[in-house]
């Protein structure tokens, strides 16, 4: 017989009870007042309690608690199931197997989520990607710089580095936006946007390098790849890593892998070479931006965020410059002027 304390779950009053195991599968409880009860082993569960105490609850009566000295555990061991420790799904297989299995599954999920988009992206029809892009950007509305000559010069510049790129049903659509941030980006669906300072504060050769880099992202399907990655593994990790509210904002922001960035750079260098444009101005632009970033935090931050810029990248472009090559200007004098004025209001036409 074990002496214990019972809460019946109806009031907070503690009752002194004596407990015996009856026919090996029930607990028989008895009070001095003559009250008695029998509890099936199946409904009993162990609750957490400080050392020295065994606390039992019932699955069918929420507030019912029986407190016994910890020593009673040996006597009751046949009646009590295993103590829930880590959660039932972990307890079932054991901690160490759970850790090993978890690590393996997580490795596969993360690995697949990170690598698979690279293989899937080339098979996503461009028309699907274009639908997404069109839904997001449309015709860019009022922000777009609509000067016809400037637009023609911008498209010519893309054609210079990537002949044929702007033609055909899946041709690249390039637009200048009147936004006072230094940035350029490839958007889903073959859209490339260039913000005003990237035109007015550079020269056509450096802009050609930047555009070639973005064209490479589009052609290599890096945009679709980044989208798949963000919506797949990116969303999954953010979801369970906590604080959905704050993180949901980032779910659709695209980011390329380091490999993709390096590949876009290599492609851009090759395109510049074929077009006979010096890669040196692009290198100088990168050097200037990363220097400004160090001196004036915030300037060019947007560009650097989407295109992690290191001195290494500048060196790569710089090294590609051939001192013996006969480089030609990226645009004619007239086209350069037109491009420079693409966002000027006096020449804007709706």
């Amino acid at each position, binding site marked *: 017989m074990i002496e214990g304390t019972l809460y019946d779950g109806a009031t907070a009053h503690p009752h002194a009870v004596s407990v015996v195991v009856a026919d090996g599968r029930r607990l028989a409880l008895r009070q001095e007042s003559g009250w008695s009860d029998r509890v099936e082993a199946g409904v009993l569960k162990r609750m*957490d309690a400080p050392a020295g105490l065994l*606390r039992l609850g019932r699955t069918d009566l929420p507030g019912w*608690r029986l407190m016994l000295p910890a020593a009673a555990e040996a006597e009751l061991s046949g009646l009590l199931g295993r103590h829930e420790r880590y959660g039932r799904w972990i307890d079932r297989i054991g901690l160490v197997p759970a850790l090993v299995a978890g690590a393996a599954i997580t490795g596969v999920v993360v690995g697949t989520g990170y690598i698979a988009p690279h293989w899937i992206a080339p098979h996503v029809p461009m028309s699907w990607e274009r639908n997404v892009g069109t839904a997001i950007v*449309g015709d860019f509305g009022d922000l777009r710089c609509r000067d016809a000559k400037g637009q023609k010069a911008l498209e010519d510049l893309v054609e210079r580095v990537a002949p044929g790129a702007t033609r055909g049903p899946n041709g690249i659509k390039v637009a200048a936006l009147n936004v006072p941030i230094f940035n350029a980006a490839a958007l889903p669906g073959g859209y490339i946007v260039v913000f005003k300072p990237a035109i007015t504060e550079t020269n056509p050769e450096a802009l050609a390098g930047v555009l070639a880099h973005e064209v490479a992202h589009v052609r290599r399907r890096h945009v679709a790849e980044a989208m798949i990655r963000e919506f797949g593994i990116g969303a999954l990790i953010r979801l369970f890593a906590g604080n959905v*509210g704050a993180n949901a*904002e980032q779910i659709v922001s695209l980011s390329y892998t380091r490999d993709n960035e390096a590949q876009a750079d290599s492609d851009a260098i090759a395109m510049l070479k074929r077009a006979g444009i010096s890669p040196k101005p692009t290198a100088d632009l990168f050097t200037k931006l990363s220097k400004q970033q160090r001196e004036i935090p915030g300037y060019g931050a947007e560009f650097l965020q989407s295109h992690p810029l290191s001195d290494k990248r500048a060196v790569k472009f710089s090294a590609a410059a051939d001192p013996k090559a006969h480089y030609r200007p990226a645009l004619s004098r007239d086209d350069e002027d037109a491009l420079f004025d693409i966002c000027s209001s006096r020449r804007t036409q709706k």
Partner: protein
Amino acid sequence: MESHHERAAAGDDRAIRFTGNWREYLPIAATNALLIIVTLGIYRFWASARQRRYLWSRTHVIDDTLEWTGTGKEMFLGFLIVIAILAPFFLFIQFLFPALMVRGKIEAASGILFLFYIALIYLGGFARFRALRYRLSRTYWHGIRGGSDDPGWNYGGEYLGRIALAAMTMWIMFPWAQTKLWNARWNAMSFGPLPFSAGLETEGLKARWALVYAAPFAAMIVAFMIIATLGLGMGVQDGPNPTIGGAFIAVLLLIYIAIPLATLHWYAKYYRHAAAATRLGDLEFDFDATTLQWLGLFLGNLALAIVTLGFGLTYWGYRNWAFMVRHMRVYGSVDLGDLTQSTTHAPREAEGFADAFDVGAI
């Protein structure tokens, strides 16, 4: 019916005390951290249930410990339900907002974003209420639990209104908003048959709130005194002076430190007043943590995480709970015979909303 009275006594015999220790908690902290990592974070719901089971079971109130009966599974399901409700909403906004921005429809985009934040604030208030209600409903003492019959929808509205009013007055009305909301929240809660009653007033809290506004100016004055002192010793020099740049950074730093410190100073007093203004039946509460003690807790947490290369993060919940309990006092008596089971509806969605908005319960 026999009745059973217990009265809090002084010294070690405090009515509420924490009996856990960090060595005993170590296996829980370590296995929780490992399981969270290998499950990409999914285990965190079970981890938090385990943590609470331990902390509650080591919190002694009068003659018995508290007990946490919430499960990881219900918190996980609650989270999934909330995600299912919120995800389409978030995704819609995520596409609509950039689509409007890129078309130059700045007004429409700002309008949408404004409505979005209004909805977020409302849901944040609602989440805080539901989290408190959920935690009380899963907290047992002597086999009796707490809860609330109020679903919290109105509280969300009141929260939105008061926060909006505070924001419109440059946060001057913030102490009124906070005290009224504390009362609204706790007056809707109960334990067993006993309702909580909270009558928190802004009396004694207004001057400290004014300090938050005074802090940046005080910081600037201190900084200028430093500059003046340095300036005297420098003499006349040509060219840019590096100490001026340094002093400018010092001013900024001081402001960045002064405002949070003043805010903490306010919260320390707010919580002391709030506990004293809240009752449960005949039970009265007292909370005595000072600003320095709060600061010690936060800096201690930070130092622990840094020294242990991040593992210390798993002890933050433990340290915060122990801090709350150690600074808490309970006075008065409970009639155990009259403390009958709560008849409130036990919510099923757990803390999904609170989890999604990352808000605490108290």
